[in-house]
Every structure is written in C-alpha cells, then in structure tokens.
C-alpha cells in the first residue's frame, strides 16, 4: 500500500511540474517591469549629485584640475591623465546612461499617466526636463559637441554628434520653457520623490532660475544678447537665500552616505591633500573658511603641496573633517553663485539691480556663513584691501573669478567651468603635466571603438579631440 501511495505522489509531482508554462521560466520575478516616475527622478538626481560630490579618481578629478586639492602618492589624475582611468568615459556614461536615460523613461510614465491632473503633470514634466537640461549642460560644457538629437534612442547605436552651440541654445530654450510652465498652484512630485525640495514647487522655480542664470552666463562672451535676456528674466526669481539652496542630503549610514566619506574616511585612503595654490591664498588672506575647508598636517599646521609632486602625506593639510561627514550635504545650486552671477551681470551691463560690489560682497558673505563663519568674520574679510571690490587686484573678471574660485570649494565641476570661462586666477600647470590645461575632456576612448565615424567627424568639427581644444563659449 505504501509503495502505491509513493507512486501516486511521484505521479502527482510530475503532473504539477508539467502544467507550468515554459515561458514563465524566462520571466524575471524579482525585478519590476514598470516603476513610478518619481523613483527614476530620485535615481537621476542622486547620480548627478554623486558625480559632483565624488573625489573618486575614476569619477571626478576636478578638485585637482582647479588646484584645490593635490595628491600625495598617485599623480596621474593631478597631471591631467583622463584616459588611463577612463574618467571621461565614466563622466559621459553617468550623464547619458545613469541620468538622462532614467529621466526620459520617467517622462514617458508621467505623460502616459491618465490619473495625473494636468497641472501636476505639467509641473512634473517641467521638473524632469530641468534636471535633463542641467545634465545636457554638463555634457556640453565638459566635451563640446555631443550626441543630442539622436541620443537616447535604443535602436540607433550610432548617434550623430550635434554642434555644441546649437545644443546649448536648444537646452536654454527648453529651460526657459520649463520655468514658464512651473505653477505653484499645483503640486509637483511627492516629498519622497523629490530629493532637492521635498515637493516645494516655489523652490523649484528659484532653483531653475539660478540654473538658467548659471547656464546663460557661460555664453555671455559669445552671445551677449541671449545671456542678457536670460539673466535679466531669471534674476528676480532666482535663489535668494541659503534656505532655498538646492542641496542633496546624504544619509549618515551606508550605502547612501556622501561619496567623500567613502573616499577619505572609510577607505582609509591617504592621498588627498590640500593644494598649495589654494592653501597659500587661504593663509595669506586670513580666510575664515580655511579651517572649514581643511584640517592641518600632522604637525598642526596649514600647509598645501605642489600639485603633481609626490610628497609625504603627513606633512600636508588634509581636507576638513566636515566635508567628509557621511551625511555632509552636496550643493547643486546656491545663493552664493547667484550673487556672483549678479555681480558679473552688473559688470556686463545687464539690468539685475544693485551694484557689482554689493552682489560681490553678498556672495562672499553668504559663502563664509554657509561654511560656518560669522557675520563678523565676513566683515573682517571683506574689509581687507585684497578682498574689497574697489581695491582687489585686477578688473572685474579677475576679482570675481578669484573669489568665485575660492567659494566654489567642494563644487569642483562648477569651479572648472568658471575657471575656463573667467580665466582667473592664473594657475601654473602641475608638475609633469600630460597636456596643457584641460579646456574640455577628450571624448571617451571607447567612442572611437563604438561610434567611430561620428566620433571622427565630431573630433574634426571641434578642432581636434584634445583636452586643450576650447569650447565654443571659451573665447579668452
């Protein structure tokens, strides 16, 4: 009897296993085929912030390029070697694949959602587009001509590169359009789908306008009329206090902590140190931000090292502990840069109100306060003859360029754009530099292998795929 029972059980099992459809074996059951749009926006914004915040030698080496930091042991990055670690390819992939791809997909979901009220839908699409424009801007300002019109098409493996100037004009237009569509009468994304502002549409308007000013001033030297109109329209609605800054808030616990915490603290990497170029300035001008930017060397002194030169880690200042806290925030757009742009706008004759000196002082004061200084610290610093707008060295490009270079500490990518644009301060090349100053990143090496014909054309169109090649807006 027992044997018969066993046989029956075996037969039953066989029947059960046979009824299963063979197609289902090939179905992913652990991952979703559809997701909410806001979760894709979250991922895009996090990737954008990670790229800017990181000091990983495979991701973001602009702290060395703008000579805020140097390296004790490894010198390749500081000496402008972007190819060995394929930093350019990583930057390109982050912007295209990890950010723009997700945003495009999110737009598709928002557009197709029948339950979303029109006003909310418009706000959400505008917000997705603002981050998209932000990202396209980073690509253009990093590389020059890029695949744009034919990009993000998964059926076309060989997208044509578009002219940088044309792309830039188009994204500026889109940004203006997005700004005009944002409506505080409707909500945007929910709190947990909006890392930057937790669903506050008014703050998004401020953020978008500061972004518009930032992107417009970049082309001021080559297209003054467009820059003027954009900045005059954006300035009244831009970020007007640190409370409205667009900041990405990292968490105190892994894995969503600030990338700098991984690269400086948890990895135990003894390589990143203060560059002499910035440290000498902070020392000589008694900058109240010095102790916020950097710690001391092992002997308790504030010392920077020559970029590109091997040096003993113990003898040089390290980045300050506060920027490497796991939950240190990362700035995506802020009041400080808004005021610097206003100062420059006044100098360029744009109608943004106030004087250049006034905006310059507000910018520096806001920077000092943000970093933890007091109003008294700011007063003392601003009173110095080498800081005060009327007495500081050089004409406006030099004064603003120099102070902005300091204030963009820990925002190395933006620092790189401004250094190329304003051409101040004048920084000597690192020891054993592999090339001249990088006015752009060379195209990812693998573009030559994967999109060769279009790459070759783009390289010749921009005047050679070299890091020294200047972008269309880089006139001086």
């Amino acid at each position, binding site marked *: 009897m027992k044997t018969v029972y066993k046989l029956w059980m075996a037969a039953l099992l066989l029947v059960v296993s046979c009824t299963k459809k063979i197609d289902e074996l090939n179905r992913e059951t652990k991952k979703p085929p559809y997701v909410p749009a806001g979760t894709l926006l979250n991922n895009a914004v996090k990737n954008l912030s990670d790229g800017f915040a990181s000091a990983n030698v495979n991701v973001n080496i602009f702290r060395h390029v703008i000579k805020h930091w140097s390296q004790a042991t490894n010198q390749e990055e500081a000496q402008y070697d972007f190819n060995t670690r394929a930093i350019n390819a990583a930057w390109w992939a982050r912007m295209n694949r990890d950010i723009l791809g997700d945003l495009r997909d999110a737009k598709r979901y928002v557009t197709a959602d029948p339950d979303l009220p029109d006003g909310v839908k418009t706000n959400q699409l505008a917000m997705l587009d603002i981050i998209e424009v932000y990202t396209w801007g980073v690509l253009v300002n990093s590389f020059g001509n890029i695949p744009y019109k034919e990009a993000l098409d998964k059926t076309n493996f060989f997208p044509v590169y578009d002219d940088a100037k044309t792309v830039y004009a188009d994204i500026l237009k889109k940004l203006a359009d997005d700004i005009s569509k944002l409506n505080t009468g409707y909500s945007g994304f929910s709190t947990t789908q909006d890392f930057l502002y937790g669903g506050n549409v008014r703050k998004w308007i401020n953020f978008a306008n500061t972004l518009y000013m930032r992107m417009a001033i970049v082309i001021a030297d080559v297209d003054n009329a467009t820059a003027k109109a954009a900045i005059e329209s954006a300035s009244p609605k831009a970020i007007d206090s640190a409370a409205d800054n667009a900041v990405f808030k990292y968490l105190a616990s892994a894995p969503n902590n600030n990338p700098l915490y991984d690269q400086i603290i948890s990895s135990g990497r003894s390589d990143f140190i203060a560059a002499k170029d910035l440290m000498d300035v902070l020392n000589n001008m008694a900058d109240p931000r010095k102790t916020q930017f950097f710690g001391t060397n092992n002997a308790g002194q504030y010392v920077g090292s020559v970029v590109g030169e091997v040096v003993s880690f113990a003898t040089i200042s390290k980045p300050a502990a506060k920027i490497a806290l796991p939950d240190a925030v990362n700035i995506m757009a802020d009041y400080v840069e808004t005021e610097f742009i206003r100062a420059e706008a006044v100098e360029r004759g744009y109608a943004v109100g106030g004087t250049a000196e006034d905006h310059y002082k507000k910018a520096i004061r806001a920077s000092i306060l943000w970093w933890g200084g007091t109003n008294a610290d700011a007063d003392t610093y601003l009173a110095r003859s080498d800081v005060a707008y009327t007495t500081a060295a050089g004409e406006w490009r030099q004064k603003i360029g120099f102070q902005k270079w300091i204030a963009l500490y820990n925002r190395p990518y933006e620092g790189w754009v401004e250094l190329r644009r304003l051409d101040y301060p004048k920084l000597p090349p690192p020891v054993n530099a592999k090339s001249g100053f990088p006015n752009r990143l*060379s195209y990812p090496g693998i573009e030559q292998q994967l999109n060769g014909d279009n790459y070759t054309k783009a390289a010749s169109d921009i005047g050679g795929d070299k890091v020294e090649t200047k972008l269309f807006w880089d006139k001086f």
Partner: protein
Amino acid sequence: MNSYVYHAISGSWVFSKHLQKWSWLSTGKLRANYATVGNDAPPLSLADVYDQPAPFYTPSGTYILFSLPNTKNNANLRPEKTTSKEVGLEMAFLHNRLGFDVTYYHTNTVDQIFPVATTTSIGYSSVMINAGNVENKGIELSLFGSPVSTRDFSWNMNVNFTRNRNKVLELYQNSKNLLMASFQGGVTLNATIGRPYGELQSNTFQFLDGKRLVNSSGLYPVSTTTNNIIGNVNPDWIGGVLNSFRYKNLTLSFLVDVRKGGDVFSLDMYYGQNGGFLPESVGLNDLGNDKRLPVAQGGGIILPGVTDDGKENTKRVTIVSATSTVLPQSEFVYDASYIKLREANITYTLPSKLLNGVKKYIKGVDISFIGRNLWLIHKNVPYADPEENLSAGNVQGYQSGAYPTSRNIGANIKVKF
C-alpha cells in the same frame, strides 16, 4: 513557441582497405563533416526590468530609487548558429609505427547572442543582440611514431600542432568594431571588421621616421586616440611534444608545450613600475646618479627618441617615483610565447614475480611520480607566467594581479586487483 532545425552530415572512407597490397600502409582514412549547431540566449535576456538601488530611509519617509539597467534586453533574439566544415586525413604506416592525423576546419559563428557594448549615449552601455559573423579556420596536426620498439626498450613520440586564424566578417548595424572588454589601465579588447577577433587597443607613442617622438618638455607625447592597435592576443600557433621511454619496468614520459606569439598587456608591469614596486623603476642614470632624484640634483633620465626636428633627444626629465607616467600603454604589451615542460612522469611497474605470493588477489602494482609545470623553459613576459590571464573565455590578453603558476608534484600507487 519557437522551433529551429539544425542539421549535420558526416562521412569517412577507409581507403586503405582497397590498398591491402601495400603492406607498409597500416591505416588510411579520409573523413569530412558538415554541421550546424544552435545555441540559445542566456536566461532573462528577453524582457526589460528595472534595477533597484538602495532606498533612502529618512524620518520624512522612504525615498525609493529605480534605475534602468545598463543592458537593454531584447525580445526578438534568434538562436545563434555555428556552421562548421571539416576535412581530415588519418594515416599510419609500418605496422602503426608511424602516422599522422591532419584536420582542416572552417567554422562560422553567425548571429552570436551577446550583450554588445554600445556608446552610452543611447542610454545603455550594452544591448542584447544577434550579432555578426566570425570566421575561424585552421589546421590541427598530430604525428605519432615509435622510433624504437623492442622487448626491453621502447620510445614513443607524439607531436601536436594547431594553428588557428580568426577574422570578423560582419558585426551589427553598421558597426565596424565590437568592444569585447574594457580593462583598467585604459586598454580595450576588440573585434574589428576584417581584423582578427581579439586585438588590444590603447595609447601608443608618436613616431617620427620610425623613432619615438619626444616633445619639448622631454616627455613622450601620447597619441590622442586610444584606438591604436597595440597587440593581437591570438597565438601564431600552439603545439606540444610528448616523449615516452620504457626500459623494462620503468617508464619515463614528458610533455613539452609551446605557444608561439600572441600578445598580453600586463597591468602589473604598468602599475608595478608606476608605483615603484619593481626593480625597473630604480637604478642609475647615464650620469651615474640615482635616476629618481630631481634633475637639478643630477637625477632624471633622458628618454630615448627624437625631437620634432629629428634630432636625438637630450633633455633630462625628472621621473619622481614613476616610470610609466611617461610611457603609454603600448610599452606594457608583451609577447606571450612560452616553452614549458608541462608534465613529466616516472612509472615503475613491480615485476610480476614479486607478486607471486599474492597473485590471487593483486594483478599488478604501478608506482609513479608525476610533476606538472616543472620548468618554464622560455618566455618573454617579465616576472609572470604568460599563460596567466584575468579571465577565461573570449577575454584574453590581459594580466592583472597574475599569480605564479603552481607546480604540482605527486605520487601515485596503482594496485590492480
């Protein structure tokens, strides 16, 4: 439900049967075959799904993140197909004392299924597709002979030789180059149309009349392009010789393996010199001083090469701790040829008279000593074994953290009951 048909045909002709009057011919066989073999797609490569990065758990709620995966799946995949054609000739002479087996083969792998690397401008870094047509053709030859064969002493010999040539005939869409792998150190492995499957590309020197160009700072300007071919990972040929000698109860055999050609990039040499771990990164310069000292203190080196005007470079440069900071990747590509004593083996068979008392239970006893990887007779890759590779399969020609090959020595007692 899809169904696909594959077919194969093979035949052979033992022509020696018709030539029995030629007593010196022991065996003669001609064979030929043709086959198509299909291969399926890997699981879960049809439908698209999202990846989920770690969420943000905050007091104001949980921020959920989803991300498009890096590889675009494809619901329209076809099975890949390999067509192979082969002809072979086997012959043996003089009562099988001497013979050979030679095969010529030609295979085409069409519609191979794999995640093809794409420019990330498309929003993905790879797409699952059916791609291309890769041709492999080559010759396999084995010779065997018994030069001596007596009651007490015999000598047997086996020689193998394989020569393979592969070529990429077709890729996907208008692609001219398939990126097979991107390695640390800025080196890629590629299959380019009309070129061998598996070429290394990266930075190289710039040349003036065949001599390395040195710039005004005394350094090598590296090429601005990274698609310069710096090596081909495919060997020219591989082969092996097995000799086996028997004297009465003692047998000695050894196998020598040879690989000729094929390149390998060594990240270990690249970083090892860069970080100053290897003896190559220290030493005296032409002035007799430590070359790592600054130029001002008599250190530094003069890089061999010519300047723009074709004159010999005379500028001394400081190299701090790194030699590779001034050398492009092509300098760290090595010829992966080798000659190895792969295996040696001594076997003693106990004389049967020793087993007289226990013959009922034990039919024979063999005692052997076996050694593998005993001697790397010749190689061109510094420090490492040229056979070491980062991974297996198609991704070849790249060493990173190469382990020394282990030498195995073992003993074996075989008792036959």
